[in-house]
């Protein structure tokens, strides 16, 4: 079919262009400037699909975001579901299909780029229609920083869909002049194709900019397809216009039934006639203009039905002059046609002589709903205006004002005036002196002659075919069923019927539903609460919200200074918080199990090293540092001598372990603490919280130095030899450099701080150097250790080594419900200190219960069975019917090279009293017999730590 319905002239489309596209398998032609909907209508295609519940044919009803029917799925260039044909700009090669309420997500990753950008302004204007343009211009002339967003491909708003004149010239001229001035005024950011979809506190507005969709296959890949603008505005002017609402009647959903204003838009903006023979049904003056203008364009408009008894005299006369019969007090009572409207049944409102008019198109107008979404999102209250049957903004907000038809003003000159006023008020509130009063252009638009009537539906028809929400297929009958069931609140009716919950969020159905419910309840709409508008105003792709936080940028990856070395050695990594830590270094053909056994053996029998740089490190300086540490740790730190190191446990005020680590005393008033990798930030925050809020009198300063240092534990009986080779000036003997002491020395020419700390039970030196020199140190250690078979090991081996020694890991063997006593660490809890954080909680009855879960070791009866971490400990030798008494669970479980068997750590009720008992651990659908043991399974005497 050729473009039969494209008028020979008019519209804002490029008539020299020729775009090919495909819809529901049909090849069609359109023009640049078309939407998919206007191009379909130009080809005479109204029906886009069928309805979701009843499968009824449905066609294009609107010309913008309020469209309830014309949902489409884009197939080419990239699959995208649930778009409205009325908002898809046409491009060459577009392939789309109509949807019946459900779309299909793409099966492959979206190759497009999405991003976000922050913008700040004094005045944000939403909507570039007459009111918005006037507001933006006023603000810009006052010197304010202005952002103007508009969801259309070009500015003008409602003017794009009319032939209104301003100051005797086409309104185009006025729009062009305003835009030219805005675009040349510094501090103005104008964004087309940008929908403000959410308005929040403190002037924060989110907007979605569709930057390349209209370019179709020609969209450049380096340009983000969509951009989320995060706009922070001192003041916001909401000039978002209004949506026309229909009147509900029997069979009001056939293809060919459109909103009257949409028909004007298709005529003026796209040069498209929506039908050959049109009837018009209205309860207000605005649809007369549609009838008149379409008739002027040469289209047959036989009748206009006005539900009002009193019709506008001037407009009626103009209709008569164009051969349009105006029927006062008449309504549409039903329609005929299947894929397309064929006849309209008409009759007097309230009953009487019925008639039928043959026509392929029916234009309907039930009035206009201001787009109050953003105002409502900001917490603005809405007021029902009985004269227009619409919700309008109630009292104004301090930082947002509404102008134009969004405020319920539908007369063009007044809209512009309101825009100027809103612009002046906004700049004044933002601290500017408004520019001299701009002249208001005078519109030639015919003023409303007769007050609108509010008509939600034509009664007396087939209510089960009178559709309120076309997208959800909800009829008047269903609303009656809801109120009949006793539901009164609109929120309840909405949930009961699903009205307003579809993709269009009830833009054409919400107010009508409110009216119907009030009507059925005999209630006054003005006294009833409307439903709440929540973001987003229109649907926003998740890809756009995700933006560039995809792939390697999804979540920050923290790496140590030695990361590249680990990668080059083929290390497998594990995530610890945001850190990538080398988990093990598999050699050719090794799985993790084999690699870890080898690494463990090296640490216990030779020498091994690991990257422990991720450990949190906090520098603590001040005369009261020791006093603070005595409060922070359960054990006594003030007695620690300079040059020495002490292990410490930190608890919350509830007495539960929150972290552990070592404390190094560098000087009387200078300490260095280490924290677990995952808790570094938490512990620093914890210290600052106490220092700043409870004990500001303590003279202590805490500074994070985590990344300033690279930390390398050198572990194993041969570690002393390796260190001695690299630090010839250092006496590494046990007498000169004892356990839990530190020394500064030069290692491989690098200034280093070396600590005799062991997390494995083996002789070990933890070497700390400035991170810039970390790689040099590491490589020197590897080289010097080569004769001893030095082996890098990862976190998995570290876990096995420490577990063999019964050292718990906070966050793995603890879960926030474990006290130091539960861990068997009463030795680390000072009896001498009068107070420290957590102390008072230790004597709470709950914490003294003998049946608390305590840390123990578990040895599976079968030494080759690896217990699952998280496995429940029970007393039964089989899995009984639930409920099953659970005694605790496995927290760590490994295969040990040193023990030649598997083992586990677990928290177990009355665990220490159960040592020697035989219990069972669930594994898959079976139970595994285990013996409860002490936590220390290797080198109980601690003979190995000094080498």
């Amino acid at each position, binding site marked *: 079919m050729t473009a039969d319905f494209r008028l020979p002239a008019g519209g804002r489309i490029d008539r020299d262009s020729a775009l090919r596209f495909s819809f529901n398998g049909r090849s069609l032609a359109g023009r640049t400037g078309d939407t998919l909907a206007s191009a379909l209508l130009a080809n005479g295609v109204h029906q886009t699909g069928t309805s979701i519940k009843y499968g009824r044919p449905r066609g294009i009803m609107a010309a913008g975001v309020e469209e309830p029917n014309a949902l489409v799925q884009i197939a080419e260039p990239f699959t995208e579901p649930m778009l409205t044909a009325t908002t898809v700009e046409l491009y060459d090669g577009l392939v789309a299909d109509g949807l019946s309420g459900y779309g299909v997500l793409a099966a492959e990753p979206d190759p497009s780029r999405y991003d976000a950008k922050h913008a700040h302004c004094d005045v944000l204007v939403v909507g570039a229609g007459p009111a918005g343009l006037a507001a933006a211009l006023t603000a810009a002339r006052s010197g304010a920083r202005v952002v103007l967003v508009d969801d259309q491909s070009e500015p003008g708003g409602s003017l794009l869909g009319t032939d209104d004149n301003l100051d005797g010239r086409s309104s185009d001229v006025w729009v062009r002049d305003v835009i030219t001035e805005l675009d040349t005024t510094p501090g103005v950011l104008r964004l087309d194709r940008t929908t403000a979809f959410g308005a*929040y506190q*403190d002037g924060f507005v989110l907007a979605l900019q569709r930057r390349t969709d209209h370019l179709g296959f020609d969209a450049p890949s380096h340009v983000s397809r969509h951009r989320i603008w995060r706009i922070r505005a001192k003041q916001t002017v909401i000039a978002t216009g209004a949506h026309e609402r229909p009147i509900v009647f029997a069979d009001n959903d056939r293809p060919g039934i459109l909103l009257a204003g949409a028909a004007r838009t298709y005529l003026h903006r796209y040069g498209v006639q929506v039908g050959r023979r049109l009837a018009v049904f209205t309860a207000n003056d605005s649809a007369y203009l549609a009838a008149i203008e379409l008739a002027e364009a040469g289209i047959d408009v036989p009748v206009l039905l006005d539900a009002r008894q009193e019709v506008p005299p001037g407009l009626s006369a103009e209709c008569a002059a164009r051969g349009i019969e105006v029927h006062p007090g008449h309504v549409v009572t039903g329609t005929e046609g299947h894929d397309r409207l064929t006849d309209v049944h008409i009759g007097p409102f309230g009953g009487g002589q019925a008639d039928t008019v043959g026509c392929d198109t029916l234009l309907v107008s039930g009035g206009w709903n201001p787009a109050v979404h953003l105002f409502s999102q900001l917490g603005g209250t809405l007021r029902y205006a009985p004269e227009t049957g619409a919700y309008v903004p109630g009292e104004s907000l301090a930082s947002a004002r509404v102008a134009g038809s969004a405020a319920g003003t539908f007369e063009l000159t007044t809209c512009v005036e309101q825009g100027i006023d809103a612009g002046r008020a906004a700049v004044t509130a933002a601290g500017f002196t408004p520019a001299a009063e701009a002249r208001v252009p005078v519109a030639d638009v015919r003023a409303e002659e007769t007050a609108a009537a509010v008509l939600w539906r034509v009664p007396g028809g087939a209510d089960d075919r009178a559709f309120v929400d076309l997208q959800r297929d909800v009829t008047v009958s269903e609303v009656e069923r809801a109120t009949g069931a006793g539901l009164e609140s609109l929120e309840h009716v909405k949930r009961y019927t699903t009205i307003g919950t579809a993709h269009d969020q009830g833009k054409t159905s919400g107010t009508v539903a409110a009216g119907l419910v009030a009507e059925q309840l005999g209630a006054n709409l003005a006294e009833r609460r409307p439903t709440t508008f929540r973001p987003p105003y229109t649907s926003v792709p998740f890809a756009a919200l995700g933006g560039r936080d995809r792939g390697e940028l999804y979540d920050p990856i923290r790496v140590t200074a030695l990361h590249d070395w680990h990668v080059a050695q083929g290390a497998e990594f594990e995530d610890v918080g945001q850190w990538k830590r080398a988990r093990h270094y598999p050699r050719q053909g090794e799985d993790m199990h084999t690699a870890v056994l080898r690494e463990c053996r090296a640490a216990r029998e030779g020498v091994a090293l690991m990257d422990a740089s991720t450990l949190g490190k906090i520098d603590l300086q001040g005369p009261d540092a020791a006093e603070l540490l005595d409060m922070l740790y359960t054990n006594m730190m003030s007695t620690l001598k300079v040059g020495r190191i002490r292990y410490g446990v930190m608890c919350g005020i509830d007495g539960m372990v929150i972290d552990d680590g070592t404390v190094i005393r560098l000087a009387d008033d200078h300490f260095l603490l280490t924290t677990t990798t995952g808790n570094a930030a938490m512990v620093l925050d914890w210290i600052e*919280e106490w220092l*700043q809020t409870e004990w*500001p009198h303590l003279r202590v300063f805490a500074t994070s130095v985590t990344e300033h240092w690279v930390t390398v534990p050198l572990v194993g009986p041969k570690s002393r030899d390796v260190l001695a080779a690299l630090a010839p000036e250092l006496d590494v003997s046990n007498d000169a450099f004892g356990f839990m002491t530190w020394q500064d020395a030069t290692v491989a020419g690098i200034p280093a701080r070396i600590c005799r700390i062991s997390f494995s039970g083996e002789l070990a030196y933890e070497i700390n150097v400035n991170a810039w020199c970390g790689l040099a140190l590491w490589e020197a250690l590897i080289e010097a250790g080569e004769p001893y078979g030095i082996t890098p090991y990862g976190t998995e081996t570290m876990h096995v080594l420490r577990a063999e020694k019964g050292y718990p890991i906070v966050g793995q063997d603890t879960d926030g419900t474990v006290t130091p006593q539960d861990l068997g660490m009463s030795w680390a809890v000072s009896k001498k200190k*009068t*107070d420290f954080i957590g102390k*008072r909680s230790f004597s709470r009855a709950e914490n003294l219960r003998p049946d608390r879960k305590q840390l123990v070791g578990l040895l599976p009866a079968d030494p080759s069975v690896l217990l699952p971490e998280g496995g429940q400990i029970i007393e039964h030798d089989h899995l009984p019917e639930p409920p099953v008494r659970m005694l605790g669970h496995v927290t760590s479980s490994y295969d040990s090279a040193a023990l030649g068997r598997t083992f586990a750590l677990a928290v177990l009720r009355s665990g220490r009293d159960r040592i020697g008992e035989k219990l069972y651990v669930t594994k898959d659908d079976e139970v595994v017999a285990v013996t409860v043991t002490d936590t220390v399974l290797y080198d109980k005497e601690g003979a190995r730590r000094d080498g």
Partner: protein
Amino acid sequence: MQLIPCPWCGPREEVEFHYGGQAHVDYPAEPAALSDEEWAKFVFFRDNPRGPFAERWSHAAGCRRWFNAVRDTRSYELLAVYRPGQERPVTT
């Protein structure tokens, strides 16, 4: 994205802040002197009013300072912010 006015750095996006719970809950001078019940009240119990509530916040991603704020729990509006040690201002 709400703005929270740091008493030092000025208004910043809420993601820069950490919440610290109810303000003006002092660590007891002598925990050992408290009964289990009194101690539990300090450890576990906090107010949850509908309306103005004095809270502690930390400008975690900024100057890392703790401060107090009176926030209306109905509207999230911050009625006042003040530095530690300062009196809770009168808010309406």
